[in-house]
């Protein structure tokens, strides 16, 4: 059978940030509005069950395998999959949020190598939308853009354009969309780059060389002090802010960042997985200054979540809460019986929902001075992507099914 060397890889864990881009009721990119992974006004059921379908509004089996998250655009929940021989058939799928019935499908064939660690999948990155288009990226470096009816708008095979791009452990960086430009980060030991692509017609807006080292983190969007948008790219060598329109670096810091979890922007604070967490001040022009750094807040795989001036990280199977202003660790909570956690958690109201890879969802009360697990729910499906929360519903992309969780 196939032989693999294990390496750290992210399962769409990194954070495409949609600052100011997402409609109020949508979850248009990985980890939703602001990429904070939080919908503080939502109220989700604490109890649900994949076997009895308690508080499962619908469950839709999907052929193939995916470890990315789903997005929600209007009344569509959109996800990707890779199926068929070697997961070479790459598919974008839309389902009705109310019924779970399929609305449309677009399918192409992977032109890059679709190979990955068995834990991952070719469909690892989370798709992104600007409300008019949907962009899907795959580990095989195939990038497709469709409209909201599933019609192909354009297609790029970045593996064909850049033949040495790829990583057979699996790529998982998720795309972001800002100011009419799709930004994709493809960092590996071969052709390593970030690229801006015009969303209207698929042409290249800009191209930036990146360190030739494996990286699974995603671009993060921020607002610069000037009010313009910026794209944060992180790697084991640097942290750089890029202008999305022309790809020019606005500032660059030589610092080693994590290559799995991605940065989060919370207002003027840029929370970077680096030496635990490093928080930078974005309020003035030029390279940002450091506000605090705390190595006990160490997100080893999942991206940080921010809500109500607190930051939450998952260090293997321990949930750690810190003060977002100071970095002071407020509490730690061991997640029992969780073997691996790849899915970045989400917050709804004062509850944090954290899925283990085995499909157990731990519901944590984060309203008090200590975190407390109030429920453990079994979905019965592998979960590696981060859920989407819209209104009082949570959409979970399991490896083989799509689930809508809401109170009955």
């Amino acid at each position, binding site marked *: 059978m196939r032989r693999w060397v294990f390496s750290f890889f992210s399962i769409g864990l990194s954070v495409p940030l949609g600052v100011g881009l997402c409609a109020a009721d949508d979850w248009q990119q990985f980890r939703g509005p602001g990429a904070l992974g939080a919908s503080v006004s939502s109220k989700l059921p604490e109890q649900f069950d994949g076997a009895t379908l308690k508080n499962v509004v619908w469950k839709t089996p999907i052929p193939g395998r995916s470890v990315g998250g789903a997005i929600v655009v209007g009344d569509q929940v959109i996800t990707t999959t890779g199926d068929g*021989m070697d997961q070479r058939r790459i598919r974008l799928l839309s389902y009705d949020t109310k019924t779970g019935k399929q609305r449309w499908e677009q399918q*192409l064939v992977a032109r890059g190598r679709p190979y990955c660690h068995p834990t991952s999948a070719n469909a690892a990155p989370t798709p992104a939308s600007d409300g008019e288009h949907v962009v899907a990226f795959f580990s095989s470096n195939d990038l497709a853009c469709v409209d909201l009816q599933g019609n*192909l708008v*354009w297609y790029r095979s970045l593996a064909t354009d850049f033949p040495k791009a790829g990583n057979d*452990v699996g790529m998982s960086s998720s795309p972001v969309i800002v100011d009419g430009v799709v930004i994709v980060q493809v960092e*590996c030991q071969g052709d390593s780059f970030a690229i801006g692509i015009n969303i209207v*017609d*698929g042409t290249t807006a800009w191209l930036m060389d990146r360190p030739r080292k494996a990286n699974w983190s995603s671009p993060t969007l921020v607002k610069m002090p000037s009010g313009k948008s910026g794209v944060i790219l992180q790697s084991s060598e640097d942290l750089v802010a890029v202008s999305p329109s022309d790809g020019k670096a606005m500032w660059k810091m030589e610092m080693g960042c994590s290559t799995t979890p991605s940065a989060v922007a919370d207002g003027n604070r840029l929370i970077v997985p680096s030496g635990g967490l490093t928080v930078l001040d974005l309020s003035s022009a030029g390279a940002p200054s450091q506000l605090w750094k705390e190595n006990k807040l160490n997100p080893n795989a999942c991206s940080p979540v921010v809500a109500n001036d607190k930051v939450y990280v998952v260090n293997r199977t321990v949930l750690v809460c810190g003060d977002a202003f100071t970095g002071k660790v407020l509490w730690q909570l061991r997640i029992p019986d969780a073997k691996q956690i790849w899915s970045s958690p989400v917050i709804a109201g004062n509850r944090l929902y954290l899925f283990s890879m085995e499909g157990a969802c731990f519901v944590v009360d984060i309203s008090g001075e200590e975190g407390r697990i109030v429920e453990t729910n079994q979905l019965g499906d592998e979960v590696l992507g981060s859920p989407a929360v819209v209104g009082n519903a949570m959409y979970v992309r399991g490896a083989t099914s799509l689930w809508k969780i809401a109170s009955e």
Partner: protein
Amino acid sequence: MDMKLSWGRSAMNGAFLASLVLGTPTALLADTNAEKLGTLRTIRPNNDTDVKTASSVVKQLSESGDVGLIDVLKSMKGASPLGKNWLLGLANSLHRKSPESKNDSLRTFLMDASQDPEARYTVFRWLTDNDAELKAKMLDGMLQDSSPELRFEAVAKVLNSSENLETGVLQSLLDASRQPEQVVAIIGRLGKQGVTVNQSKHFGFLDTWNLIGPFDNVGSKSFDKEYAVESDYAAGKSLAGGYDGKSAAVQWVTETTADPEGVVDLAKVFSNEKGCIVYGVATVELPADLDCEIRVGCINAQKVWVNGKLVIANEVYHTGMQIDQYVAPVKLRAGTNQILIKVCQNEQKEAWAQRYVFQARLCDSTGKAISTK
């Protein structure tokens, strides 16, 4: 409609761009559809002009509805891999608008083995994704289909139908199967019935290599350094003698692997040396010239030459390895063919970065091992 697929690219683009600028009378639309499809068929890599034109073409054809779904599917035959995906995207859009109306013509298209394999498999999925009975019925006749995807599905259907398949059935599946994991599974099932298959030979792995090394690769700086082994090989000189190695003179050693996947363990042969390079040479005797493929799996950085020509080069360390990881078409000749591989190990210390291995096989474009003397 008679497709004019042999038209030159510049003429097609010129005509299409002119129609965009001048506007196209409705009566002429049908005449230009072949040109538009031709534009999609021949899209070039990394070419913004082509991408922009293709985006316009797809939108126009998808919205106008005046191009036939079957024509789009037929135009995939002979298209570039990039072009096929543009055409596939258009075909999906057209099919979505009337998924049931063309089933008879789609069935006819599917059964026409001369059509593009990816187009045929796409049609198969449209017709059968929600009809398990039809899917099973259609796959019954597809064990030897020219489409690798249809063949894969046909083998899987039989293989998964019972844990107690007869030996003859399993052997017919082995003859049909090309996908490595599926092949290994069938050989495993045959083994449980007492039927031994030489897996390495079945795949066509090169199991005997003359190896020499280690040469210096400290700091991973020598991927492109041409050691004397390479220059002698390029010059067609005999490789029989020794060379100056990393820290001492080195001599060729012969290694024959018994691994069922043809894996040659250089860490074992060269005592877990790090920061080094090892060369391997394999020879293949053929009765006649042959177009085939060399398929390599390697966890380390590597270069591969066939009869003096560099065909594979990947400066990548410890990011996965599997059968058929890197594929290159090659022309072998009657008589002796010489394959040279350069395998580079770095100095990473992690436990998962200690492997120093490769595998290589020769097969036809479907993955079936070639016959050698």
